[in-house]
């Protein structure tokens, strides 16, 4: 893969959490790369390491967690080489995050205007009152919010408006990569569509790449260009979204798609049998084999390596 045309590269990233019974690997050797303007999805069950991965990209893993291997490159900058201060400046300016449950990530006692101004000031942009006002209005307009929202406190806004305010803050320094961690999981479908539309439009205007984290395969199908599937801390499949939907290679991917209830056809509600594994007691071989309807003896002993399939896809399965 030619590194030159990638905006973000995650290379063999590993994250562990210290536990009294020994370290627990939450993210194991995950690699992927984003093209400029690409919309990349990360899907998987809770506990699969999606959110940990987002935090690790931003170097925001807190003890007892730690990044214990690999690196993240933003264009030609290896993030592991940055000082804490340089990393702090790069967050928001280079890679910005729209956090999970971002409705609760706004400061409840500050008006939206102050929160935008604080974000800018933290990154060295001290604006005059008038310039700050204009900037706040422009940002709010960009996410489709009326200017008077600047005067509001978070509790005065609806869920969808709060989420857009979070997007406005995330884009205030024109980041190259936006990580959106389940940005619409608390919203109803009508508002979800509006918020995702806003995110998509803003991303196109900035020319930024987006990592969308979530577990709704319908949302992924409608929004991302390429999708990575995480299971037990590993990226088990990556492929362009159309390929994932029409011909998933990993049995887990197929089950994940099938478990989405359809609005077209009333049939059996199908879950994925078994439970997500406890990371501390990962089964030997392929972590998915105890739940896999196609498992072979080999799957229980030998861990499948990640195999590249062309430039844009990979899979980690003995049978694929």
């Amino acid at each position, binding site marked *: 893969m030619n590194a030159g045309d990638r905006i973000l590269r995650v290379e063999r990233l590993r994250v562990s959490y210290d536990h009294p019974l020994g370290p627990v690997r939450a993210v194991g050797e995950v690699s992927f790369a984003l093209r400029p303007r690409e919309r990349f999805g990360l899907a998987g*069950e*809770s506990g699969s390491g999606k959110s940990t991965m987002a935090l690790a990209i931003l170097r925001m893993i807190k003890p007892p967690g730690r990044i214990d291997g690999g690196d993240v490159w933003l264009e030609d900058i290896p993030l592991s080489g940055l000082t804490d201060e340089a990393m702090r400046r790069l967050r928001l300016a280079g890679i910005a995050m729209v956090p999970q449950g971002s409705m609760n990530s706004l400061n409840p006692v500050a008006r939206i205007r102050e929160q935008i101004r604080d974000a800018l000031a933290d990154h060295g942009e001290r604006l005059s009152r008038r310039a700050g006002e204009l900037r706040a209005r422009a940002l709010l307009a960009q996410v489709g919010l009326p200017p008077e929202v600047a005067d509001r406190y978070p509790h005065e806004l609806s869920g969808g408006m709060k989420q857009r305010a979070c997007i406005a803050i995330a884009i205030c320094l024109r980041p190259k990569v936006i990580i959106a961690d389940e940005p619409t999981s608390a919203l109803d479908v009508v508002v*979800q569509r509006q918020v995702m539309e806003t995110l998509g439009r803003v991303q196109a205007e900035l020319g930024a790449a987006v990592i969308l984290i979530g*577990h709704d395969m319908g949302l992924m199908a*409608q929004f991302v260009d390429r999708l990575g599937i995480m299971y037990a801390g590993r990226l088990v499949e990556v492929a362009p979204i159309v390929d994932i939907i029409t011909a998933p290679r990993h049995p887990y991917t197929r089950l994940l798609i099938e478990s989405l209830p359809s609005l077209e056809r009333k049939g059996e509600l199908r*879950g994925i049998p078994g*439970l997500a594994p406890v990371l501390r007691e990962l089964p030997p071989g392929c972590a998915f084999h105890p739940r896999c309807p196609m498992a072979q003896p080999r799957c229980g002993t030998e861990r499948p390596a990640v195999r590249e399939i062309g430039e844009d896809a990979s899979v980690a399965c003995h049978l694929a």
Partner: protein
Amino acid sequence: MTPLLELRGVSKHFAGGILGRDRKLALDRFSFAIDPALPGITAVVGESGSGKTTLARLLLGLIEPTEGEVRYRGRPLPGLSGSQRREFRREVQAIFQDPYEVYNPFYRVDHVLATPVRKFRLAATRADRRRLVEEALRAVGLRPEEILGRYPHQLSGGQRQRIMVARALLLRPRVIVADEPVSMVDASLRATILGSLRQLHEELGISILYITHDLATAYQVADTIIVLYRAAVAEAGDVELVVKAPQHPYTQLLIASVPRVGTARDWGTEERNPEAPSPAQGCNFADRCPVAIPRCSAAPPPLYRTDPRRAAACFRLSEQPVLLGEDIGQVLGPRPGAEPPVAAVLSA
């Protein structure tokens, strides 16, 4: 037959603002009945703030209506005697959204299962109690040996939510009010939990009110559906009719907003009508409605019965008869010719 549980013209206002001067209408003249002889699964869908949870809390007797009456077996809830109230508490069970908040973290999960058995004297001995609890856990696909003796934090969200279903099941209820029971669990587990609810209905004849903002699961689980918009019923009826051919513009918007798994990027956008009238006096949806007409801002539309099994509140359907008494129960009955579940036949 006397309905098991009934809302008659129920409205609920909440006081808001300083000194409660801003009254907020959470549910507007809502009537609905659950017939014990015809158990069904009814989904209640709508956006946040549409009144879904208010409806659940009214049915469970957790809040009192501002107007109208909630009746259990024909008797208004406030007038129930002690023993009737106990019976109500047993027959009408709740499953809530957050499988984290309903547990006391200091007790093992056994506590939440054993308490109702003891309170309602369902078992004569400890061994009986244990057996009942284990049966209920198995019925929802859990292995008792992996669950009993553990603390809530040692179990996953999906396990905790299934224990809540098992708990509801222990009491042999006639009605389960499930308020967003799967919105906090993974897609892969959602199907399993909803499958257990559906199974309870089919095998034990339990009526289920499934409250959700997820249309796809509502479609899969329910026989009938009620779409709420800003405290009022927009559309109600057979889930096949409502989901496949929605008639109210809000239902149409809702269904078009669901992101589909497919190769077509057909998500679309919400069309707005720049000349949409204000909903102050009229239809709640008028200000967002792409097809609103002047009439929509004059008065709220009644429910028009467009099919024996469907009604929708939209003036564009005004050539159809008005649903009598606004009783949506009339369009929520079982499909003609549908076999009632075996248990219902046995208990009838």
